[in-house]
């Protein structure tokens, strides 16, 4: 426990967020840095990372003003760049380890950065807005630190960083996984959605419905759907909730952490937080731990683990947002929607495997918590029967964790138009050999490159792409892209003929993709 246990992994990863508009003068460079992990790194090292990054950004901007540096591949490290907001940069430095485990795909790493930032935006608004609010930067730092650290805690499993490596090349971050439902169930779901909408009257509410960890319906635009979906899977779905049943005690968390199969949620929390409150708090004003006394800023930590639970009325409750003054009720969480640029109350209701999230505009409710609980009451009156019905329908059609397994295939299907993906279940992917995975990893890297090129060539024109390689272990590794849809596939124990592989894709496409990849 403590520093020692974290140190090895911290060498593997550096993550920093900085603002190019700050610290323009000699000697004030430190002011640029809004976040740095590991925080206990000497300032000189931190500055050298940001300095190098800034230099490269400035240099590459000469040639490509709109999209500056994306990645630096050094001998021992990869630097992945992402500019989420104008002049605000996130840089992730990962070590290229000699052990084969540390093989990274930069696009996947960039998705991690995107995810952190999008989630941050959803709860706290943009970084720039926070900076504008308090030009000193203390407010921003005090928000970013606990948030990113809470996020990273999910990625730490034991001593190891679980960044997306080649093992995860049949996964796509920043996409939504959907439940496939029959027409009848779909209609039931949609009538439920409309019931929720109409129960809110004239105010424009949104809703998101999940079954298990899969999305069933969303009335939000894609970007907001992804964010809320990600948060729900991390913290709200029954699986996310049950991982935290062990204890509410802060101290006992460290070693009672339970790991959930499937690899999405890891609850190993203690070490990082402690390391944090030890070293960071002195350096940056604002404590990450809301319970400890001297915070200048009241910082909400939405990604804190094990703080959600199911209330008696079926609504999920949390104390993350604190309690209302003079009231025993817990404050309702709020999120900020990118699409409408409005702050919304987040109410989550859970019945068995069904999680219904609905969002009410904050400005439509005049009397605060009281108004929200009235809305919840209305929700229960109007929708609870329908929810029962929908849950029953969906449970009946639910094929279990391996519902989307297709025997003989290990696949990833991405519909980038709608930001939806579907993949072979994690348990099945682990049966693949390392050779196959590495081959697929290479292939994806290659595809990413092509896609990147294409993006700058013709912005609106989707290009079709097909790649098919035979790996060392005689597995076929296939990528096919058409009309914005991507299919990646590994066929082990396959026939040696290319025709066989192509037939296999065709068959898969016809049966599971409505023939989208069957364009001969």
């Amino acid at each position, binding site marked *: 426990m403590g520093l020692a246990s974290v140190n090895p992994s911290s060498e593997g990863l550096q993550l920093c967020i900085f603002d190019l508009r700050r610290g323009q003068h000699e000697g004030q460079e430190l002011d640029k840095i809004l976040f740095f992990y590991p925080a206990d790194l000497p300032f000189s090292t931190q500055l050298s990372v940001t300095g190098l990054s800034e230099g490269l950004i400035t240099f590459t901007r000469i040639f490509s003003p709109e999209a500056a540096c994306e990645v630096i591949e050094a001998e021992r490290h990869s630097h992945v760049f992402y500019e989420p907001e104008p002049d605000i940069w996130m840089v992730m430095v990962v070590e290229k380890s000699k052990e084969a485990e540390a093989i990274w795909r930069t696009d996947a790493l960039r998705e991690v950065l995107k995810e952190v930032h999008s989630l941050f935006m959803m709860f706290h608004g943009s970084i720039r807005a926070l900076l504008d609010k308090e030009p000193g930067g203390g407010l921003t730092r005090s928000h970013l630190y606990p948030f990113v650290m809470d996020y990273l805690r999910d990625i730490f499993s034991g001593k190891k960083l679980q960044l997306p490596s080649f093992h995860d090349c049949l996964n796509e971050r920043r996409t939504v996984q959907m439940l496939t*439902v029959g*027409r*009848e169930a*779909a*209609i*039931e779901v*949609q*009538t439920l959605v*409309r*019931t929720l*909408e*109409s129960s809110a009257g004239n105010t424009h509410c949104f809703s998101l419905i999940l079954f298990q960890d899969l999305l069933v*319906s*969303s*009335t*939000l*635009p*894609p970007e907001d*759907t992804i964010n809320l979906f990600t948060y729900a899977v991390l913290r709200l779905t029954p699986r996310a909730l049950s991982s935290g049943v062990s204890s509410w005690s802060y101290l006992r968390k460290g070693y009672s952490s339970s790991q959930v199969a499937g690899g999405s949620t890891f609850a190993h929390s203690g070490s990082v937080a402690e390391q944090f409150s030890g070293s960071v708090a002195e350096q940056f004003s604002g404590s990450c731990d809301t319970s400890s006394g001297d915070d200048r800023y009241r910082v909400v930590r939405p990604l804190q683990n094990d703080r959600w639970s199911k209330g008696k009325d079926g609504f999920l409750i949390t104390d993350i947002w604190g309690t209302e003054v003079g009231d025993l009720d817990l404050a309702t969480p709020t999120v900020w929607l990118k699409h409408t640029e409005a702050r919304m109350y987040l109410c989550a209701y859970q019945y068995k495997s069904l999680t219904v999230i609905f969002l009410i505009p904050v400005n439509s409710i005049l009397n605060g918590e009281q108004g929200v609980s009235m809305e919840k009451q209305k929700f229960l009156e*109007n929708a609870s029967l329908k929810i029962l019905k929908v849950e029953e329908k969906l449970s009946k059609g639910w094929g279990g964790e391996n519902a989307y397994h297709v025997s003989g295939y290990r696949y990833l299907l991405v519909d980038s*138009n*709608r930001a939806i993906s579907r993949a072979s279940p994690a348990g099945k992917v682990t049966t693949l050999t390392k050779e196959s995975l590495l081959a697929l990893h290479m292939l994806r890297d290659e595809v990413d490159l092509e896609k990147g090129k294409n993006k700058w060539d013709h912005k*609106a*024109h989707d290009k*079709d792409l097909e790649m098919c390689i035979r790996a060392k272990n005689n597995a076929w590794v296939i990528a096919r892209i*058409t*009309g*914005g849809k991507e299919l990646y596939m590994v066929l082990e124990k396959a026939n040696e003929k290319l025709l066989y592989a192509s037939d296999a894709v065709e068959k898969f496409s016809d049966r599971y993709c*409505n*023939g*989208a990849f069957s*364009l*001969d």
Partner: protein
Amino acid sequence: MSGKASISQSSTGFGSGALSHVYIKHPPLRCSIPGSMGLFYDDGTKLLISTTSTQVFSWKTVPFSPLAAPTTDSISEGPILAVRFSLDEKLIAVQRSNSEIQFWLRETGETFCQKCKSESESILGFFWTDCPLCDIVVVKTSGLDFYSYDPASKSLTLVETRKLNVSWYVYTHESRLLLLASGMQCKTFNGFQLSSGGVIRLPKFEMLMAKSEANSKPVLADEDLYIVTVYGRIYCLQVDRVAMLLHCYRFYRDAVVQQGSLPIYSSKVAISVVDNVLLVHQVDAKVVILYDIFADSRAPISAPLPVLLRGLPRSNSSTSRSNGRESENSETSNANYHETIIYGDDWNFLVPDLVCDVANKLLWKIHLDLEAISASSSEVPSVLEFLQRRKLEANKAKQLCLAITRTVILERRPVNMVGRAMDVIVTSYSLSIKTGSYFKGTKAERRPTGVPNVNNPEAGTDVSVSQTDGRGKSIKFESNSRHNSGLINRSSTYSASDSEDTGSSEPLKTNLDDTPETQPSSLQPQTLGPVNNLVNHDVLEQQETQLATPAISPDEMYKFVFAPVDEEMVGEPSYLVAIILEFLRSANVEKVKVHPNIYVLTIQLLARSERYAELGLFIINKILEPSKEVAFQLLESGRQNPQTRKLGLDMLRQHPLHNDYVLLLVQDGYYLEALRYVRKHKVTGVRPSLFLEAAFSSNDPQHLAAVLRFFSDFIPGFRNTTDFCAYYRVLSEMNGTVNA
């Protein structure tokens, strides 16, 4: 015009003073004959009969027409206690005394007599029957005599006798049910049904009679007993004067089951049945209460209100709703109608829906004012259920349903409630499809051009059925009764209540030949109220008056509800989407096919509010089923949203509509993909020039060469076309410039 207007108009039209749910309409059938000595109604032949000392005048009452002329028959002079025509109307039977019935052959004027054998028994009455056992039944104090008529010998033969003590009896031809009262209080009953299938003897049963005091025992009289036929089921209603209740019994083959009681508010009551609605006239109170005893509920449909006399010319304005058309029909000699007293002492209620004013010799037909009934209740789903069960004025009921549905949507009533209304409409339509009654109506209907007729195949078969039979009515009636029992089983809300129907006891049904109310011809154009004026007139003309059922097809839902509502509705269209979803849910449950125009509308609505993500879900989950129309609407709505456009393209590909798909690919610049598609699916009829043009504009000689090469292989003789030559030249020029 909006449905909203219709409801408000109808309620204001009636005002407070002139509100009514039931009306009789001027002019009545006048049956006054000089020297008339008696007025009879023969329910077997549905003839109104007036007798003078030597003549029998008879008016047909079905179809009801005020202008009906009487038929005259001469008979010999003598007392007349009762007159009944044989069912084929070839004989007239006249009861001369309590021991003698005299018969006339109408063609020849021949006559013969039938007398009681013993002095001790007397004839209570008689009726003709179509049961295979006999032709005429004579009810005597000592029992029943069944006679068959032999046309050859022109005499009656006694077929069978049943010995029973009879105080009095009740019989209606409509139900074929004969109830014989006996006992001190006349409350013990023997029942027979003389159906075309044979004579069914019902178990003996007793009626309920409340006692006023310990010693007094009220005696049940025949005027207190009514046999009622609704929805093909037979009920008996018994007035209990002491308890002021109307007991309701339902007849099954092997049982008589009491099914609740209705309160009465008058010492004198009368019962009518109009279009399967039970009318309990509270004669003293001069009001009528309506019940729809289809369901288990014995609650009245609406508040007690008086019967209205409609259509009086130059009448006091408060009671009349005359309009031009009706006054044209009326004649000038109606001074005495002004004195028509509603619920006067001289009113005789005839089975099932006629009123005879004996003093003035007038015959009125009772009508339901569906509009007023539907306006009186705010419980929309049940109003719709009620209207959907109406057969007599199916067109009017249908228009009312459409108007009501439009109104509730425009008023943005709660989605749950409108959803239930949709359930009612769809269930009713689905049943009408299953029983075929929907097509009976629509076959006469001229469909508007341009709208595909979904129903064609079935309509074809239906025509053949109805043409072959002179007994077409019977088939229709049978289907109606099946319809009813079907409804019981299906409608979940009432299933428990009427479970006997499916249980061991077989319900007594009325005979097949008897189709009292399903005559479409009784639907006179004048009866259509102002509601119809609110609906587009061309609609009315198309549908004429031939509807057999008020069921509303999904296509009509679109044309007369969703489309007009969409035009009229202001603000967020998401409410209408919610309603359409409810409709789709019902349709899916009932397995009713939905026309793509509803899907198209849904796409338009979602696109209008820019809810493309949801639209995508609707398409992916096939809530909006794929079709050519849907695909094109997606392409259209996709102008603002590429994802939606792609969905449309995918749908074209899957549908598959090769030519459209290929064309769109080329338009979007994917001409090479289009060519691959053409090759794979062997799409014929593509125009090479389109592809060549596209390849040319891309300014890539390789692509152009590829396209040329493709068509050279794909289309035989392509090398000889002008297209080839032109682009071959272009290609060589391009190559030339590239090389240079």
